């Protein structure tokens, strides 16, 4: 697939933005400055980036508890995200949602989600709305290997297929649901196999290869836009950190982690771009520098923003 330089550089930027954003969160969580839970996406950047690069702003996504990467890849604002995660009134959800509930309907982000498997039915609804309005938009549902076992996910696959909805299911198979390895939670090796039960295409891709993800999702999006129904794309990847920050992560071995860290999707993609002369080393450094600056700005914005005031508590319960 011949991609424009602009698209490739955009992907490179997105992956780095996710990486640096998350590393910053890791730092601040350790320093006790972020309340609640933080689930980092480190190591999985190629999935969100590849998948969202195949979408337009008008297409909708549903995200998960591990949502920062999805949100950023869909165009989420660094400052508004950072402020939300810090619990400030200037954040995406006015400090009421936090890391697990960030949404931006204008960017087609139907929300991160604290409920595993909660996104599938919502994505069905978004796809249904697109079909109903004949808008040619698609919906994309990110879900984990753990979430693939929820009834809601299976119900969504079935309904989307039966109704031929413009929906792309993107499974992020990072091998674990908290401490539970995939082999203990399901008998199949490839989650993509489950697509057969619903008579939709199911493909396995290398989730650490941003272009492979992009190509597979692009294909599925095309199919969806043509009215041919949903697809299931399984991206094999790995999370570098514990399930949440603070998880001692004693349930998996360091060899496994090291093996996957060696497959870091960012240097891999960078090497390709350098080799094809799409990007020079100097440009690459500049991009990273700029992103680091943007993230520092976001942190400053968050820290300088006020905490929400208590009278705001009862706002937004009803429309």
């Amino acid at each position, binding site marked *: 697939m011949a991609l424009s330089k602009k698209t490739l550089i955009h992907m490179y930027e997105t992956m780095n933005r996710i990486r640096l954003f998350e590393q910053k969160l890791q730092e601040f969580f350790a320093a006790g400055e972020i309340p609640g839970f933080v689930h980092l996406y480190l190591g999985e950047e190629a999935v969100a980036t590849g998948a969202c690069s195949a979408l337009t702003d008008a297409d909708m996504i549903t995200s998960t508890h591990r949502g920062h990467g999805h949100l950023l890849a869909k165009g989420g604002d660094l400052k508004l995200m950072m402020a939300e995660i810090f619990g400030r009134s200037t954040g995406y959800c006015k*400090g009421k949602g936090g890391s*697990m509930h960030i949404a931006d309907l204008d960017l087609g982000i139907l929300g991160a989600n604290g409920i595993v498997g909660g996104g599938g039915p919502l994505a069905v609804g978004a796809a249904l709305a697109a079909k109903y309005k004949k808008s040619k938009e698609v919906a994309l549902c990110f879900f984990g290997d753990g979430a693939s076992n929820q009834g809601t996910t299976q119900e969504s696959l079935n309904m989307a297929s039966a109704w031929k909805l413009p929906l792309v299911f993107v499974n992020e198979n990072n091998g674990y649901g908290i401490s539970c390895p995939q082999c203990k939670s399901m008998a199949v090796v490839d989650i993509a196999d489950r697509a057969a039960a619903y008579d939709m295409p199911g493909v396995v891709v290398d989730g650490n290869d941003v272009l492979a993800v992009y190509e597979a999702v692009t294909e599925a999006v095309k199919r969806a836009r043509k009215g041919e129904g949903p697809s299931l794309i399984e991206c094999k990847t790995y999370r570098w950190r514990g399930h949440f920050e603070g998880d001692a992560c004693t349930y998996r071995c360091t060899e496994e982690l090291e093996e996957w860290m060696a497959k870091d999707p960012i240097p891999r993609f960078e090497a390709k771009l350098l080799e094809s002369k799409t990007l020079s080393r100097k440009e690459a450094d500049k991009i990273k520098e700029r992103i680091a600056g943007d993230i520092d700005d976001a942190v400053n914005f968050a820290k300088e923003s006020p905490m929400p*005031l*208590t009278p705001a*508590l009862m706002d937004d*319960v009803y429309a």
Partner: protein
Amino acid sequence: MSEKTYLQALNEALRQEMERDENVFILGEDVGRFGGCFGVTQGLFDQFGEERVMDTPITESAIVGAASGAAAAGLRPVAELMFVDFIGVAMDQLFNQAAKMRFMFGGKATVPMTLRMPQGAGIGAAAQHSQSLESWFMNIPGLKVVIPSTPRDAKGLLVSAIRDDNPVVFLEHKLLYGVSGEVPDESYSIELGKGEIKREGTDVTIVATSQMVYSALEAAEKLKADGIEAEVVDPRCLQPLDKDIILDSVKKTHALVVAHEAVQYSGPGAEIAAMAAEEALDYLDAPVKRVGAPFCPVPFSPPLEQFYIPGADNIVEAVKSIR
């Protein structure tokens, strides 16, 4: 007797019941080697193995349903949901299946299943991980609802829940896991439906559950400075409810405040206040007051969350408005 945390007390109850009865087993997400989301099942996997401490897929419907089915088939499962909020996924299995089986089948089925679920706000976990949902379960005939506040109660009540022949919803508060107190080392049980007076008093009855028991005790100390002696009653179970302990206390103090962390509107306080109005009106010198959470989802940001959670000051205020 030794000092134990609420978490250790629960763990000990599970261990001792599993040692006593081989039909008792545990199932839930990450309950095995990981030891449970908050650590309640720690060490049990090593002692009892994976046949009796079973990690499940992330499938709450199947967890609650499988526990109910296994219970109806003769075992005594103790299922864990990581957060009470996830019961939404499994509600049909709990309220249409587990709770109704015995009645619908004319008494032929027995469902001795215990469902442990942590609830409550206070750790910045936001709206989908912080709710207090006891009033949902209280409204379903066929379920028992246990909500312990102290380590001692937690152990004795969990033992009773496991031995009970009904589906029991066992609600732990995540902020209580670290609270410690004296707990007998040997196995013992506390009858379901028997409350306890946590502090004697003569001027007002404060009925409080779970984490709010501590707020009520704190409020009682503050009120003492103003010459008001509050009696703090912990019903410990909401179904069956120890009506007598509440009514007897009201007959003594002539005033009632009910405090819980669940949303005040249609919360457990509504039931308790109505019960007092129906059965002890003549003894009441003042309207019954309720203290509960505001009618909104639990917010994320710390200052909002702290404001949201009812505390000792709210109880003091409620008492002073009637005393």
